[in-house]
């Protein structure tokens, strides 16, 4: 399945494990303008649950989608405020 979002920025944290995907996502989203979409590429299986949980517990962000593409987990996070 291919998803096309208007990606503002891509964060590549492939190879890094917990807590890096979440913490780096938070740092990266800080630099994304409002309305922008951050794409996060991770090989950490736990990132599926972790980024979901982080987005739910963090104001000003919305998790648009999570896609498993081979070995890579792709996350699309919108900065809403």
């Amino acid at each position: 399945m291919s998803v096309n979002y208007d990606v503002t920025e891509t964060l590549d944290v492939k190879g890094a494990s917990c807590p890096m995907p979440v913490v780096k996502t938070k740092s990266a989203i800080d630099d994304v303008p409002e309305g922008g979409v951050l794409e996060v590429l991770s090989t950490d299986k736990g990132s599926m649950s972790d980024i979901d949980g982080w987005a739910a517990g963090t104001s000003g962000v919305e998790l648009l989608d999570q896609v498993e593409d081979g070995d890579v987990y792709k996350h699309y996070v919108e900065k809403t405020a």
Partner: protein
Amino acid sequence: MSTEPSSTADGTQPSAAELQARVEELEETVAALEADDEQQKMTIVATQGTFDMAYPPLILASTAAAFGWDVVVFHTFWGLDILHEEKSQNLQLSAVGNPNMPMPNALAALPGMDRLATRMMQSRIDDNGTATIEELIDLSLEQGVELQACQMTIELMDYDEDDFYDDVTVGVGAATALQHMAESDIQLLV
């Protein structure tokens, strides 16, 4: 409506202006309390200085900071070594009395076994892409985590305040830790 100061002349009735000021003051207090309530707080007390036990407090602290929480990690006793620039590079895993080690205690007690066990763990950590302790400390500080070094333990261990990573908070004791714990939603002892 009368706003004559006559009502305050006898000292029993506050004027409309005074009431207005009081209402504004209370509104500010409520707004501050509400804002404070939104901000989650966590306090972790890190007491262990072995290689394996250095990880949980730092992983939880940096992740909590990514949620925008106000996080304090109070390092005391052996936990202080995690913040010690030199010692943190050399934290050891204990092979003795560690049921997770695939060797009997009699063997684990031989010289060099702790070092061997640490090296095995280190290589697994590298293979797994898990961050180093130093990376996690930098990451935590970057995210605004307050890493506190217990002053009493600094003196007990005969450490110098300059021995710690930059931006580590020194000169704090149990009262400071308790104060943050009392305000925290989550308190953990590691």
